[in-house]
């Protein structure tokens, strides 16, 4: 659940920050709406969400912990991977000449439109969790 929460938090944070402060485009040839400010904002939101998740859920409920540096590394890596995944699917759609992957989810596009970030973020998250997760100290 943690990678999912981080990825969705990144998505919402990047969109909100990009709308408020975004000026410089991130990679206009692939995704005309994404901005550098949005990308950075997404990473910052991910770090905050990751810290909150470990403090409020991971340690008390699962007795697992991430060291502070690990929280930062995990959040940044998963957030960046998720944003790359979003750009990758934008590239695929642009290559195909379609706006949405499908119309299965009214108002949201298709399944891939909602899961594109997760598809890149999840393997990164899994690898890092195997390396960084520790039992919480009593």
């Amino acid at each position, binding site marked *: 659940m943690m990678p*999912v929460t981080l990825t969705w938090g990144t998505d919402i944070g990047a969109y909100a920050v990009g*709308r408020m402060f975004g000026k410089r485009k991130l990679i206009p040839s692939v995704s005309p709406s994404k901005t550098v400010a949005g990308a950075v904002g997404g990473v910052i939101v991910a770090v905050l969400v990751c810290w909150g998740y470990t403090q409020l859920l991971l340690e008390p409920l699962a007795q697992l912990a991430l060291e502070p540096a690990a929280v930062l590394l995990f959040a940044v890596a998963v957030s960046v991977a998720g944003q790359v995944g979003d750009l990758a699917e934008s590239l695929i759609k642009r290559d195909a000449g*379609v706006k949405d992957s499908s119309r299965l989810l009214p108002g949201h596009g298709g399944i*891939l439109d909602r899961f594109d970030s997760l598809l890149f973020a*999840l*393997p990164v998250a899994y690898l890092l969790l195997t390396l960084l997760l520790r039992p919480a100290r009593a």
Partner: protein
Amino acid sequence: MSELTRRILFALAGAPLTVALIYIGGWIFAAALAAVAAIGAWELFRMAREGGSEPLEVAGVTLAAAIPLFVHAAWLGVYRVTLTVAVLIFLALLAGVIWVRGVQRRPLVAVSVTVAGIIYAALVSYMYQSGTMITRSGHWPEQCW
């Protein structure tokens, strides 16, 4: 409804559902991921067709759906797909498409797009890996399996 509102609503609706599926775990979770992988593969193949490719949709959607189920089977120790089996499946796809479609219909592109679609859509299986890793820490109820 604004785009931001749509994204927040999706997250609010999706989060409890995801938590519930991870909590339930087991074959139900794997089956849900299989459904997501199958739909994702179908969407990818649809986009590939729009772009001019002819992926092997039936085989691709089936194999994409199978991967989360095989991941679950591997976690249970029931069956583990080896690299050799994966290679044989790839060779069977390639041989089959060459035989059925011939050279003119670009069999190598068709198989490449199909394999890429299977792998891409089945990456959702890592949700099973991550979720099961935490639930198997021993601090969740047994039904999480």
